[in-house]
């Protein structure tokens, strides 16, 4: 046991400990956020308005992270099922009375602000599954898996109906990562993989035309050069023309001449790759890897199963976001509308991620007190 006294700590340590923050994670996140602002400045055509708005969101996100970091794990665990139930109710509400934005029902209008309940689910689902599995003892059994899978599929189905394929897959991934981390037997995982493969035709039949088009475009971007294909073609030109060293900050012609669509949001990685080259890309991938690894380290030292599972799922989901976004921008995955985490312009995703890191911080500050 470490004895905590004021004399043994520097002022910085004292502040961090007092605010229950993990210094390594904090530094890594700060670098990523600052880098993101720099890229956004370039991608937005050097717009100070955009930077100002993004700064406000970052401020909101950091505040949320600080706040959540103070919440005890005990409280988080206790609210998990309630948050999940509230989220499902909100999703149903969206179905009935939701605002139609961009042709899909995702938003709930609260009068003073609009928000997407599906965003809550990105956290509520892993919290719920972690809560459920932490109530059980020993290695999870088939029945536990089944219950957990049903818990995951309810919000996934509802979000898919909105229709928001990208978010529903991310929510599903967050939930299934918890099951994976809980130590589900290998055979089950193989079975699950096969079941997922079998579900693809069903998923396909459930998809709307524009969603199918995006998947088809992936295999042949030239078939739809006006729409999603245009995105991918232009994005690849931007990335490829960046070369090893990049064209330099604020000098990416593809992005500055507005050939690249959605360059501030989903396709911001292409701007980065054009301006900073392969070296910059490699460093960015390393930075992401470091954040994920630190998150998993925190999870490994967590005090109980709930914290472990939740922390692990949050870290790995973050990795999934990043991989899906970069895969999509480089033309390896269909264009599903997943932002580059903590870099893309846009509010809700950023705030949700910062809340998630707040949870990780909380887990970090409440490590196992007994060290074997």
């Amino acid at each position, binding site marked *: 046991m470490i004895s905590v006294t004021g004399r043994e700590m520097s002022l910085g340590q004292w502040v961090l400990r007092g605010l229950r923050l993990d210094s390594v994670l904090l530094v890594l996140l700060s670098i990523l956020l600052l880098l993101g602002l720099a890229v956004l400045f370039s991608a937005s055509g050097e717009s100070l308005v955009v930077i100002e708005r993004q700064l406000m969101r970052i401020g909101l996100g950091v505040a949320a992270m600080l706040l959540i970091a103070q919440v005890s794990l005990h409280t988080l665990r206790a609210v998990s099922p309630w948050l999940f139930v509230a989220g499902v109710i909100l999703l149903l509400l969206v179905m009935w009375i939701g605002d*139609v934005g961009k*042709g899909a029902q995702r938003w709930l209008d609260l009068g003073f602000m609009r928000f997407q309940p599906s965003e809550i689910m990105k956290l509520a689902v892993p919290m719920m599954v972690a809560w459920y599995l932490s109530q059980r*003892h*020993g*290695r999870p059994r088939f029945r536990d898996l089944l219950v957990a899978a049903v818990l995951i599929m309810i919000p996934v189905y509802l979000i898919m109906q909105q229709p928001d394929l990208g978010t529903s897959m991310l929510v599903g991934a967050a939930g299934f990562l918890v099951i*994976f*981390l*809980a*130590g589900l037997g290998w055979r089950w995982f193989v079975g699950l993989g096969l079941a997922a493969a079998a579900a693809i035709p069903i998923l396909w039949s459930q998809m709307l*035309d*524009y969603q199918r088009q995006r998947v088809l475009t992936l295999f042949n971007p030239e078939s739809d*050069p*006006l*729409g999603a294909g*245009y995105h991918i*073609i232009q994005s*690849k*030109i*931007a*990335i*490829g*023309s*960046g*070369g*090893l060293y990049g064209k330099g900050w604020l000098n990416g*012609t*593809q992005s500055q*001449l*507005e*050939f690249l669509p959605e360059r501030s949001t989903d396709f911001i990685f292409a701007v980065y*790759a054009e301006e900073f*080259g*392969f070296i910059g*890309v*490699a460093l960015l*991938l390393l930075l*992401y*890897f470091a954040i*994920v*690894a630190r998150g*998993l380290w925190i*999870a*490994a030292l967590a005090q*109980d*199963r709930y914290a*472990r*599972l939740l922390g*692990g799922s949050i870290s*790995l989901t973050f*990795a999934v976001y990043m*991989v899906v976004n*970069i*895969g999509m921008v*480089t033309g*390896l995955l269909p264009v599903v509308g997943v932002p580059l985490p903590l870099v893309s312009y846009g509010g809700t995703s950023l705030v949700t991620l910062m809340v998630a890191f707040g949870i990780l911080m909380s887990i970090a500050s409440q490590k196992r007190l007994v060290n*074997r």
Partner: protein
Amino acid sequence: MAERDAYGEEEEDRERFVLRILLALVVLAAILLALGWRLSGLQVGAHSHFTTLSESNRLRVEPIAPTRGVIRDRNGVLLAGNRASYQLEITVEQAGDLEALLARLRGYVELSEADVERFRRGVRQRRPFQPVLLKAGLDDSTVARIAVSRHELPGVEIEARPLRYYPLGSEFSHAVGYVGRINQQDLQRVDARAYAGSSHIGKSGIERYYEELLHGRPGYRQVEVNAQGRVLRELSVTPPQPGTDLILTLDANLQHAAYRALDGKDGAIVAVDPNNGEILALVSAPGFDPEAFVHGISQADFAAVRDNTRRPLFNRALSGQYPPGSTVKPLVALAGLEEEVTTAEREMFARGYYQLPGHERRFRDWRREGHGRVDMSRAIAVSSDVYFYDLAHTMGIDRMVPILGAFGLGQRVGIDSTGERAGILPSRDWKRATHGEAWFPGETLITAIGQGYMLTTPLQMADFTATLATRGQRYQPHLLRAMDNGSGELEYPLPVAREPVVAAPKHWETIHDSLVEAVHARHGTAWGSVGSTRPEYTIAGKTGTSQVFSLGEDEEYDEEQLARRLWDHALFVGYAPAEAPRIAVAVLVEHGGSGGRVAAPVARKVMDAFLLDAASMALEAAEDE
């Protein structure tokens, strides 16, 4: 002991977790390496390829709008076509000082505030180097003047683009509908990408209902542009796929005759072929000029059309809901026969009014002195209200509603156009649901003569008349006869049969005979205006006069005393030739007065045009072969 177990279990759990984490990290590292590999392929391997693409700059994809399908009537007469229209467009990137340019342009062409406002909106929403429309429909001299001065007008281009036109204008405005400029709401309901190069979209009627067919699929051309955005060369072109041409069931001659038969009065006419549901004429008068919407109607003009008290934009044939009046009596009579409440032969003495047992209130007949002894046939022919009050009272509303419903009252017909309404078929349940009140016996009586809560559209009236003509066979009324997608083969959708109205043949016979009697017997309500003129064929029909204004028990209806807007609606439904019906017609003349006097002759003119017109007959004959 138990504690140690829990501790051991916890340790085991944690170890398992750490193993999984390590596995996840390995997988993640592998994925990142794969991403890195992909990126190095793009950025290092294919770097020069992409640099060329990026520098020679820049590939741009420009949409090519498909040609909209044309709309023709059943005989090939053009109802909606496309013709070239010159429009002024500006490429903002090349224009320099936009305000100065606009000021200079005002010297060549008149720019309305709406034009400029739309232009500014377009400027904000455009893609880079995409020309934005400033003014459409330029005349030749303006085009010439601008062309000569092009060097003074950087970024200004004159484009000839196909624009919709409607050769037959307002007579078809409600049947065919119109296209207008695409706005934000339109983009919500279609795939915005398919409309990247299009300026117009179907806003109402056939133009809207068959938008997807008519529009076609856009093509695109890949072009290379220089740094200023000028097109240097075309790399590849995928031609657009033109929209499908539609051939409607409408007969332009008949539609024209029907419109003229209304003789400037407000109203609606629907004519349908009872044997297959083809709509032969669909008139709502007054119409409007559909081309005004194509060019972009000005606020003031739109306000004038919208606020016109005759409501030219209102499609009376599909959206207008009117009490069907006495035209519903044949259906009520059939219900009485089928429910065995009465027989065709049973006679009653029809006085000038009817009283419910134990009630004071007098339900008056339209004819003050009554009709004397009537059986069912005569009751329909003379349109005795009292006979139907009595029948309705005996039958009750609950037995009446199902048959009226089987004829389609209270439900949308489901025609392939926009704006159709369902009307109202009142019942106990309906009244409880909408008014929260119980059904009163008196309401049964007025429902039987098509008054009270009951509302129908002219389309529904034509539809049930067609059902009477075929003795219960019901075909889905429709406007699309065939599609021509350019393959040389016309595609004919099959007529869709709906649930028939089942009744005993002799009951159908009774109704049919009474409808002939209403037109061709001296005592029939349509005798004076139609039967007495000895038409060349037999007509089965029913007049109706539907009240807009309710009279007190003792008041007299006097046209001269009443404002025109309170006059009764004049109605007539009928089919001909009675023995082998080829056309069923419903006529509504808003505030026209008496159905027999006003609406029946209109229907007669429509039938004449269809059955006697030589051209029509020749075509029918050719079709039969």
